[in-house]
Each structure stands twice: as structure tokens, then as C-alpha cells.
């Protein structure tokens, strides 16, 4: 695609890395050549950069799409999902998921961003419900100072929870901040 067809929101490949054009500035002296200034978001690692290009530049469009998937299981650093549309399985490495891997339990429905047929990243539900596997009994001093204590969830994620939370409780976690929201089920 010619640079003149690139718009804000276009997805393009630069050195085989897919970028989203977050801002596009077109500048051109009346008698001169056009200058294009882009703010680009790297779709693999999320980093952002600014780049300047000239007229005549050509790009390969990044064929990026999304599909819904269900998390099935983890095997080492490999996370296996299944498309809810065609039931095909696909694998994403932990290195691409980053902190998002802390909130995946069997059955969680996520939106997966695909480059061609290759999964790049997932978007989690804003809230997930996870079981508390281990939690210390709060000491008296803890209660007085913080009203919070440390707990380990079924995914291995360490989180601060209120002192009344017990092992076996199910809590709601905000995946944007990684923090405790509320208790959903109390272990009988």
C-alpha cells in the first residue's frame, strides 16, 4: 500500500513487526514533497515510537484481526486456547502474554489479536473470578496497620486481600490493575 493510503488506525508492517498507526500527521510544502509523521504502537510488545516518512514510501498492510477464544490449559510456558467460532486450538507463549497469564484459568473467554493466522496478544475480561489457594492467617499487627494480607490465587498470582479472606474463597480481581475487588463465594 502507498503511504498516501495510510490512515490513523491503519495497521502496517515495518521490518515484519506489526504496528498500529495511532496518530498520523500529513505535512507538505505546496511545491515540495510530503512528510508523514506517525505515532506507532508496536502490536507485539505494546511500545510506542514516532517515525517520519516521505511520499513514495510503500508499506505492507498488517493483516490483523481478532477472534474469541477460550483458555484450555497451560503446559510450561505454553498457553493453549480454543477458538469459540471454529473450535481450533492455538498456542500463545507466556512471553507474549506477560502479566496477563496471571489471570487465566480454565474456561476464561478472551479476545485474541491475530496477525494473519498467528496469535499475538489477548484482551482479558475486565474482571475474573479466582480461587484463593493459600493465605496466611493475619497476625494482630498486620490487622492494625494494613487491614490487608498476602494471598496466592489458583493461577499462582500473589495478591493483597483483606484479612477476612480465607483459603478456598473465590474473589473477583480487576485484570487492568491486578487488584482485589470483592469476595464472590465464601468457603463453607
Amino acid at each position, binding site marked *: 500500500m502507498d503511504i498516501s493510503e495510510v490512515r490513523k488506525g491503519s495497521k502496517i508492517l515495518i521490518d515484519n513487526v506489526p504496528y498500529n498507526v495511532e496518530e498520523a500527521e*500529513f*505535512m507538505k510544502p505546496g511545491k*515540495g514533497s510530503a*512528510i508523514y509523521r506517525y505515532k506507532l504502537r508496536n502490536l507485539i510488545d505494546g511500545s510506542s515510537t514516532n517515525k517520519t516518512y516521505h511520499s513514495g514510501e510503500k508499506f505492507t498492510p498488517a493483516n490483523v484481526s481478532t477472534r474469541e477464544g477460550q483458555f484450555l490449559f497451560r503446559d510450561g510456558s505454553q498457553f493453549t486456547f480454543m477458538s469459540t467460532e471454529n473450535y481450533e486450538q492455538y498456542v500463545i507463549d507466556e512471553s507474549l502474554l506477560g502479566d496477563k497469564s496471571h489471570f487465566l484459568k480454565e474456561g476464561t473467554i478472551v479476545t485474541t489479536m491475530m496477525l494473519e493466522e498467528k496469535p499475538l496478544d489477548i484482551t482479558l475480561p475486565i474482571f475474573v473470578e479466582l480461587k484463593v489457594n493459600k493465605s496466611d492467617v493475619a497476625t494482630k499487627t498486620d490487622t492494625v496497620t494494613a487491614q490487608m494480607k498476602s494471598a496466592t490465587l489458583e493461577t499462582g498470582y500473589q495478591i493483597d486481600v483483606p484479612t477476612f479472606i480465607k483459603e478456598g474463597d473465590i474473589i473477583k480481581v480487576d485484570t487492568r490493575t491486578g487488584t482485589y475487588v470483592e469476595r464472590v463465594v465464601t468457603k463453607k
Partner: protein
Amino acid sequence: MTDDERQRLERLLPNLQRRAFIYQTIRTFFNEQGFLEVETPIRSPAIAPEKEIIPVESEGWFLSTSPELYMKRLLAAGYDKIYQFNRCFRKGERGLHHNPEFTLLEWYRQNADYKQMMKDTENLVCAVAVALGMGKTLRYQARAIDLSLPWEQFTVSEAFTKWAGWDPVADPDVRRFDEDTVLKVIPNLNPLRPTFLLDYPAPMASLARLKPGNSRVAERVELFVGGLELCNAYSELTNQPEQQLRFLEEIEQIKQWQHRIAPMPEKFLNAVKYLPECTGNALGIDRLVMLFCDAAAIDAVMPFTVDDA
């Protein structure tokens, strides 16, 4: 009609009213000085070949990219003071200050040079400011621009040496010139004063004559106000063989870079033989209206941009 479109058009009304008033003021400004308003074709068999301007084709002809060639054919026939509002089309030009379809105001005078065009431009912009009751201060994007005459001016050599660290007259690198114009020179101009850049390197002369006594620069001037490139004026080239040579070079460049065969504007070339000493200016009306409407984007001064068409 969607609610979004209705609201958008309702919001634009004050700017479009102001735009119409500015047109009236400009017509009065030129008519009172004895200029004749003319209209020339929007669709032509041949336009000025320019490497950096991509025209829109129409059944083998071209939509106007500027009325310059027709205006000069009128001058060659003896018309001495003419102006026109001309709808122009340049493919792919879309940004905060660009729409691929826009309006140029062009005016020409016989027996005058580009310095006269600088005076005309100062007078025209000030006349619009006065008609709008602004006096000598133009408020644009949270700045008060002082319109007192005369405006600031720098030669291209001075401006580039100062802000880009090199002199394009000594070393005409066209690509670097365009990039530094946009990224280094324009951003450094005094934001509180209109500023002319004049005496462009000869390879960027386009249809301007070279300066008598200094053939390394062309008598070309541009005006910048509030970061907007407002107009481009020349002492017009009246040397027919030189004009033909420049067109041939542009046609070659277009073949190389745009991969198309641009036709030679033969009728115009023939008229250049009869062209008297003259000067002309092309001013982006949409940008002038942006300035006087305190609009950051061209979208605020036209009801339907290419994205809303």
C-alpha cells in the same frame, strides 16, 4: 441525515458565514483596485507538470491543480490585473491543513515583481482583519499575532542557516530542503508575527524567474502565519526557452517518480512568448479562513471534506 452530520454542520455555521464574508471582502479589495475577476477551466487537457503534485485525471484530461497557466494566457493577451477563486485538486493531500479538493485565490499584475505581491498580501490580510473588526491583532490558537506592517522577512538562505544549520542556496538538496522546511524552519518562525521567506534556491524556482544578478536564487516568496503556509508568489518567468526546459525536466521527473507521461502544456508555452513582465500569487483561501476563524483544522472551514463527502 445522521444526528452527527446535523450537529457537525450546525457547529460550522459561524465559520461558513465568516468564510462568505471574507470572500466578499476579498472581491471588494481587488475590484476597488481595478482588478478583473475571471473564471478559467477546472478541467484541462494539460496542466503545469510538477513532480510533487499528483493531479486527478478526468477522462484523459486533468482537474485543475492551480489556475496559473490560464491566468498567464490572459496576461499574454494584455489583461493587466486579474484574480480568481479557483477550485483545485491534488491527489492524496489530506491532513490538518490539507484537503485534496481546496480553493486557491490567485491574482496577477503586469509590470510588477514579487515584492509587490508581498505588499498586496500584507494589504489583503489586513483588509480582512479590519473588515472583521480585529484591527491589528489576529488571535489564533491562543496566540495574539501582530499584523502591524511591515511583516518579518528572511531569505531562505538566512532562515535555513539559522534554524536548519545549512544553506540550500549553496547546496540545493531538494528532499532535505522539504523536510527541514516543515520540521525545522516553519516551527521556528516567530509565532507572533507573519513572516515571509523569499529568494528560494534556483532548482526550487518552479515558474519563477531567477533573480537578475544572482542566478542561484529565484524570485519566489512564501508567507507563513501561525504555522500555516498561506501563499506562494513569483516574479513570473517570461523566458520561453527556459520555461520549456524546466517543464521538460519536470516531465522527466514525473516519468521517473510518478510513472506517468505528463503532457506538455503547449498552448501555455506558446503564450509565454507574449508574456509581459508580471507577478502572481496563489493563496490558500481555506487556510486564510482557518486563521480568521481560529481553526486548527481545515475541516472547520469547509462543510464537506473528502472524509465527509
